[in-house]
């Protein structure tokens, strides 16, 4: 401000806040309360992360869109200054082959096009009848089983785990193993060595399967990648790493959206009624995007580093400085979504950034949308009396995972 001798902004000298920030216990589905004043007053500001580094935190929807499509903003996690999510990710970065998750255009564009085939809109849409049948069967089993039940183990986790296992050609009987190790690999409260051991175990598991597919291919994605490796279009290590990434990213995230989405809807019965009373795919499709926006489960932000100086919002992000894009902050930005704190399944929600934004936007987003459309479009219609079998303050939320979640969701009907 003008009244300071140095001409620094008023907040200079204020302590740099730690990131990620804690949520309020009373509002477990809302963004951390400290995020809102930052977005309103310091939408691009420094935060302190686990290793003492101080990357920029970008909280406004428009700033995120501008920066995440800026070619000076890099996803190369071997660049000094890249703000790693945790010590594990920092530890494995130099040993990870070039993948869609750590490269920039034009290399990224080439790599993404080689792994994109299974996620084509038409190929995903063709899976709808099989997923519908699977969900119907699981709801039948749930209704025939004990009441109350844990929605996480009865439906939320098995649906995406089965789907991604079948898509990849991973035997579902390995689900306890891959679910456990995926959880460990993404847990920021573990030591780097513990998380690395879990991701290495998954790597060895997929590597063994991949070698079998090289010999005896089926029609699933690991075999499709094996074909590309044989044709010299892809490296073996790249294919194995992509297989692991798809397996991890393919089940925890969607499982969380099913459980937290159901919790959010049970807290907003008038919104749950919208889904319970419709079979209109447009209404269901928009409801999925609104729940993705509202919940924005990625709680550690999208991470990038500046390759050149970037002027934005009257500030300069210097070359070599890290950036964190908090997607829930952007998705609750009132400039982009009026009354953003309101869950409104009828609002235009499509421009949310729950899957990130820019060329690295989630590879599996079309599959995730399909699974959520089927589950949300079926569960509340089939079980209209669904309700929580615990108080919200009794639920245990996952505050240390890369994505937010709940450890179990007891429901009754």
């Amino acid at each position, binding site marked *: 401000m003008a009244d300071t001798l140095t001409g620094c902004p008023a907040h200079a000298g204020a302590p740099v806040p730690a990131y990620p920030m804690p949520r309020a216990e009373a509002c477990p589905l809302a963004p951390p309360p400290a995020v809102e004043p930052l977005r309103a007053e310091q939408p691009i500001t420094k935060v302190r992360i686990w290793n003492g580094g101080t990357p920029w935190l970008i909280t406004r929807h428009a700033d995120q869109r501008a920066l995440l499509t800026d070619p000076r903003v890099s996803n190369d996690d071997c660049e000094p200054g890249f703000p790693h999510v945790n010590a594990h990710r920092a530890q494995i970065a130099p040993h990870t082959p070039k993948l869609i998750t750590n490269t920039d255009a034009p290399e990224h564009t080439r790599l993404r096009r080689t792994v994109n085939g299974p*996620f*084509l*809109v038409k190929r995903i849409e063709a899976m709808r009848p099989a997923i519908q049948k699977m969900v119907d069967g699981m709801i039948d089993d749930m209704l025939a089983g004990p009441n109350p039940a844990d929605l996480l183990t009865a439906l939320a986790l098995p649906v995406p785990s089965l789907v991604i296992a079948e898509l990849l050609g991973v035997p579902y009987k390995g689900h306890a193993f891959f679910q456990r190790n995926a959880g460990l690999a993404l847990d920021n409260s573990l030591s780097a060595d513990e998380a690395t051991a879990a991701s290495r175990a998954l790597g060895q598991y997929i590597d063994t399967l991949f070698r079998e597919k090289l010999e005896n291919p089926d029609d699933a994605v690991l075999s499709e990648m094996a074909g590309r490796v044989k044709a010299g279009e892809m490296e073996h290590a790249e294919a194995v790493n992509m297989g692991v990434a798809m397996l991890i990213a393919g089940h925890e995230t969607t499982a969380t959206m099913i459980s937290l989405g159901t919790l959010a809807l049970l807290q907003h019965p008038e919104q749950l009624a919208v889904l319970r009373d419709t079979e209109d795919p447009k209404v269901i499709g928009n409801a999925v995007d609104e729940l993705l926006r509202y919940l924005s489960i990625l709680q550690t932000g999208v991470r990038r580093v500046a390759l050149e100086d970037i002027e934005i919002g009257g500030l300069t992000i210097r070359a070599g400085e890290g950036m964190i894009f908090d997607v829930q902050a952007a998705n609750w930005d009132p400039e982009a979504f009026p009354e953003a704190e309101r869950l409104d399944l009828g609002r235009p929600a499509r*421009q949310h950034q729950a899957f990130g934004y820019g060329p690295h936007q989630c590879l599996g987003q*079309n599959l995730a949308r399909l699974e959520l459309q089927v589950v949300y479009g079926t569960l509340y219609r089939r079980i209209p009396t669904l309700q929580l079998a615990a108080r919200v303050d009794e639920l245990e939320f996952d505050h240390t995972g890369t994505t937010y979640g709940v450890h179990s969701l007891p429901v009754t009907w």
Partner: protein
Amino acid sequence: MRVELDEPKCVAAGQCVMASPEVFDQREEDGVAILLEERPGDELLDGVREAVAVCPAAALRLVEE
């Protein structure tokens, strides 16, 4: 109105196909966007505008002629 696709930028996320299947498709081998209608009729413009807005690679433009 004319749609412009900057193909080298396309990351094949398929969001244009989701928003406006009448105007966009994906190449089968790698998912890169295909423009089916370079000059879509007025009735398709809402979908095209959404496709432009949600394209994660900012590879689409709608230009006045």
